[in-house]
């Protein structure tokens, strides 16, 4: 109400929030880097632990990279709404009269740019470490580009629900990992199919469908969850 009365536009609010979240992420660089370093460490430990057999590594590469991406995302998820919830900014958002769905979406987009995009950009390096065949590298990058936004979107619902709990982070992982399983299965199936020179577009189609569905629905669910947490 407030914002509309003052002539504020929704897109203006969306981009103002997106810009602020990116600026905040940049100011807290260490928080930003931790999930990325975690990802690199996890993937680099596998060749050391299992042995550097190129065939074996290539076989497990899609699974390892994707599981590391899941873990890195979950680590960064809690920060999605936490600071805004704790310092009262979220209350201010509610009072502003802008739909909470839009606010959730802006924050999810910012989260993906900060936590998901680096995974996509680093995936060629990870693929090299894991000896992933070059012909399936493109598919690997595509699955991550389609899949990591889904992780942020689904995760936002879990964060919204657990934000008011003291040890919400632990519950969060229990809550979201089961929901991440289908994405993990579909994404790794796509990369393995590409490695075996089998058709893989159906898997990418499924991921795309998942992305569209979650972009459409998750912000609403996250906003509803936040409302519950605030009261």
């Amino acid at each position, binding site marked *: 109400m407030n914002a509309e009365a*003052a002539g504020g536009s929704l897109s203006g609010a969306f981009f103002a929030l997106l810009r*602020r979240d990116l600026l905040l992420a940049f*100011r807290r660089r260490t928080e930003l880097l931790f999930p990325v370093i975690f990802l690199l460490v996890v993937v680099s430990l596998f060749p050391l632990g299992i042995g550097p057999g190129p065939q074996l590594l290539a076989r497990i590469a899609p699974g390892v990279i994707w599981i590391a991406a899941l873990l890195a995302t979950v680590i960064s998820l809690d920060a999605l709404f936490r600071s805004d919830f704790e310092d009262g*900014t979220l209350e201010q958002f509610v*009072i502003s009269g802008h739909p909470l769905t839009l606010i959730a979406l802006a924050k999810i987009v910012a989260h993906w740019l900060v936590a998901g995009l680096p995974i996509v950009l680093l995936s060629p390096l990870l693929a090299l470490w894991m000896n992933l065949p070059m012909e399936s590298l493109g598919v690997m990058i595509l699955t991550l580009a389609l899949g990591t936004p889904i992780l942020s979107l689904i995760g936002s619902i879990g964060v919204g629900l657990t934000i008011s709990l003291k040890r919400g982070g632990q519950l969060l992982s229990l809550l979201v990992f089961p929901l991440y399983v289908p994405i993990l299965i579909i994404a790794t199936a796509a990369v393995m199919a590409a490695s075996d020179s089998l058709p893989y577009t159906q898997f990418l189609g499924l991921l795309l469908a998942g992305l569209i569905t979650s972009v459409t629905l998750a912000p609403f669910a996250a906003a509803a969850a936040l409302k519950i947490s605030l*009261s």
Partner: protein
Amino acid sequence: MLSASQIVFERYFEPVFLPVSFKLRRGELLLVTGANGCGKTTLIRVLAGILHPTSGKIDCQAGGMAYVGHYLGIKDDLSVLENLRFIRDFLGTSSRGCKELIKHVGLTRVAEQQARTLSAGQRKRCALARLLVSESKLWLLDEPYSNLDQEGVELVDKMLNDHLESGGACVLATHGAHRPQWAGTQDYHLLSGATV
């Protein structure tokens, strides 16, 4: 501008305060007083729409409201200026310059500093500047005088006077150490709903 009839808010099936009714018109101040724990903050949060009343009706025709509570909603990693600029861009209000507002609340010297380096009183002033940025007609203030020095208390009174004179309205909750002087003040003594 804002009216409430018989609003009740229950927490764990127990009413926090006794049913509240009032009518607030333009240029009026509703001064909510009461003992610690009688539900002043809860009432303000219900009026703000953060909490939903268990029963009763709230009718708000202000078009929008601004709220300063115990959690100030200031980002530690942003400077005072960046905090206010964000609010301005987010709400889409732009008639007054943020630097001018910072001067008004006496934070010019620390305008470029990150909010984490500010004192509690300075943070409060930053939150008060947000009231002016929002250009709302209805203010909901929860203990606005806490953490402020004498000069800061006078600043709140002056801001409040200017706001009410220009046709705004305000609900102000305080435990009563200092009360603002305004002709159109309605006193509301809030009573705890807890059964003795």
